[in-house]
């Protein structure tokens, strides 16, 4: 059965990742031995070539096994050794002679070792790759990159450091150096956007398109800035293919928000989750494969008895339901699904053969959402499922997310605390809950007006999304209060993380008219595991927050059990 199969894939991948981690550890141990030799000045030419090959292998494989940081670090070291290793390999003779290697090399190897060790502490365990995507897909966890294309004499450099403070990963590159531009475009993965001066747009577009022709898959959105906000200029920019234009002086929070939404919209992500209810297992399997190969998560149910449990475990965006499943009617099953209030708005689409018009009519009269006629071509299946998933997601976003910040609403983030507590009990991992509050927020509203208050709130929401992992959950708890759930994160690590986010936030300058103001935040943290229910954990985080407020605000307090 296909549902079995997709969880099999996850299990197999997890097992391979685990195995790779063991191997990477062994490889790094070997590298460390060589590093020791370099420190003593005893590394042979043969050893250096070995190191080079070992690093090349790590660089090319670590990312595939879910350790991208390790891969990148290994690549950097590999590059350092490259010319030396190639010279030695060609020289052939004297392989046992000792060679001089830069001292950074040994330190670099130590850093690799730390990367592998750290993984088990803060990062998610490698054994649960599938569960990650099933909670809420959000932008967080994925740092958005901004590629700033400079031309040497403009203020873009300053802008880059400004954007970095918003949590973006900024990369400056001189657009007059096509090689460097191509390298940056090739190196930047995940969600990203390009920023340039409007007068450079034509050249920048050409560079981007050339990079694409050279095998880069993504079409990154280009945002330009400039002085001329006239209709003619904007029309000209739109014609060249710009995605947005921001006139100077720049509204930085607005720009940050646009970059974030453009970059995320375009980055590849899971496109939807589909549950297929079909008793013809071969057909179901086929649909499943077709959808999966288009990047849509799909699972099948062939026995109606398993339907309800699979629904709650898989939480699909839509259901494809055969009209007749063995002795059961799809129409009646759909009705049964709707017995549960949480599935009231779940779109159910019937798969029906053309030769049963009576069934169709009956289904329609009972509130079917739509029909797909069998036989369905693969292409049509993918397209129609994709658009329906998209709509379903948009709808649930509207219902579940706060309109100002796009974060989870109060009741949902509270539920997440309960769910995480249950997971902690089951697996025994430590997790933290954080209550965040903007300092003196009322003053901001009173002094600058609600419009500025809203900007501050949105900015903090974006910063949190940029700095937290995808598995972390962020919600807007109240007016200026935020609630964050950090799974697999002990309170000490949480405190450090939130402290640094708070520091970044305090550095941001919000401009209002001719002046600018800054805002700080206070946070209270509690270990979810210390409590018997979610409400108590929240209460503890709230108490810690209150304490921080009394102790002068602008900082983090961790709740301690009495």
């Amino acid at each position, binding site marked *: 059965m296909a549902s079995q199969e997709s969880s099999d894939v996850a299990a197999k*991948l997890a097992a391979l990742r685990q195995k790779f981690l063991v191997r990477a550890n062994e490889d790094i141990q070997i590298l460390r031995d060589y590093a020791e030799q370099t420190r003593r000045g005893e590394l042979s030419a043969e050893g250096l070539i070995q190191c080079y090959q070992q690093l090349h292998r790590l660089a090319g494989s670590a*990312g*595939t*096994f879910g350790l991208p940081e390790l891969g990148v670090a290994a690549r950097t070291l590999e590059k350092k050794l490259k010319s030396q290793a190639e010279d030695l390999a060609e020289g052939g003779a004297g392989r046992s002679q000792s060679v001089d290697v830069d001292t950074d090399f040994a330190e670099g190897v130590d850093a690799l070792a730390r990367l592998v060790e750290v993984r088990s502490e803060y990062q998610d365990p490698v054994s649960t790759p599938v569960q990650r995507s099933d909670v809420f897909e959000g932008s967080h966890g994925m740092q958005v990159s901004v590629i700033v294309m400079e031309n040497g004499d403009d203020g873009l450099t300053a802008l880059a450091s400004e954007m970095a403070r918003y949590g973006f990963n900024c990369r400056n590159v001189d657009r007059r150096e096509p090689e460097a531009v191509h390298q940056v475009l090739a190196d930047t993965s995940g969600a990203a956007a390009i920023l340039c001066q409007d007068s450079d747009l034509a050249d920048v577009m050409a560079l981007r398109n050339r990079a694409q022709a050279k095998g880069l898959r993504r079409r990154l959105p280009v945002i330009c800035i400039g002085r001329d906000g006239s209709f003619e200029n904007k029309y000209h920019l739109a014609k060249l293919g710009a995605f947005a234009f921001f006139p100077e002086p720049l509204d930085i929070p607005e720009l940050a928000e646009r970059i974030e939404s453009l970059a995320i919209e375009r980055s590849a992500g899971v496109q939807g989750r589909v549950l297929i209810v079909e008793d013809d297992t071969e057909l179901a399997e086929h649909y499943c494969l077709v959808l*999966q*190969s288009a990047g849509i998560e799909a699972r099948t149910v062939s026995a109606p008895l398993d339907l309800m449990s699979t629904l709650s475990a898989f939480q699909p965006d839509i259901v494809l339901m055969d009209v007749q499943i063995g002795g059961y009617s799809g129409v009646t099953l759909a009705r049964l699904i709707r017995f549960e209030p949480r599935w009231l708005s779940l779109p159910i689409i019937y798969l029906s053969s053309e030769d049963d018009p009576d069934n169709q009519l009956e289904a329609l009269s009972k509130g079917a959402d739509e029909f797909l006629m069998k036989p369905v071509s693969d292409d049509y299946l993918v397209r129609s499922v994709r658009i329906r998933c998209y709509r379903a997601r948009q709808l649930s976003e509207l219902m579940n997310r706060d309109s100002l910040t796009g974060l989870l609403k109060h009741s949902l983030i509270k539920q997440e605390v309960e769910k995480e507590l249950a997971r902690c009990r089951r697996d025994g991992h430590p997790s933290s809950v954080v209550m965040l509050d903007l300092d003196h927020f009322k003053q901001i509203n009173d002094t600058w007006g609600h419009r500025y208050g809203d900007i501050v709130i949105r900015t903090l929401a974006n910063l949190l999304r940029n700095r937290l992992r995808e598995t972390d959950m962020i919600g807007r708890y109240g007016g200026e209060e935020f609630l964050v759930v950090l799974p697999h994160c002990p309170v000490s690590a949480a405190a450090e993380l939130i402290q640094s986010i708070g520091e970044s936030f305090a550095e941001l300058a919000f401009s209002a008219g001719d002046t600018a103001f800054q805002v700080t935040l206070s946070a209270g943290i509690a270990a979810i595991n210390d409590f018997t229910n979610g409400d108590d954990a929240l209460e503890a985080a709230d108490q810690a927050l209150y304490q921080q407020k009394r102790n002068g605000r602008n900082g983090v307090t961790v709740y301690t059990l009495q």
Partner: protein
Amino acid sequence: MYVEDDPDIRAIAEIALQDVGGFTARLCESGAQALAVAPAFGPELVLLDVMMPGMDGPETLQALRELPDMGHVPVIFMTARLQRSEIDEYRALGAVGVIPKPFDPMTLAEQIAEILARARMEP
């Protein structure tokens, strides 16, 4: 058909191609094995790791082209060192595309599909 000397990568590629991508995949550990297996397996696509001990990727490609029915099978190179000169070089050898390593097992099949679609568009 995927030719790769690292057994761990072979294992993950098998999942990426078969379970995730829905291909029927045959994994080979060396260029020599690939040449022996190809005629009977009749691959519709060959993925070649560039750096392999013994026969490397480009050498394997050249030898493969000599085999009956293997003259026009699309070939994609998998490489950890992605430089423009390198891509051009592989294209010149007759590869339809290059996929950078590390690859993402969940999207490898998609990447392949895109390369093949693009190759079909070009005359």
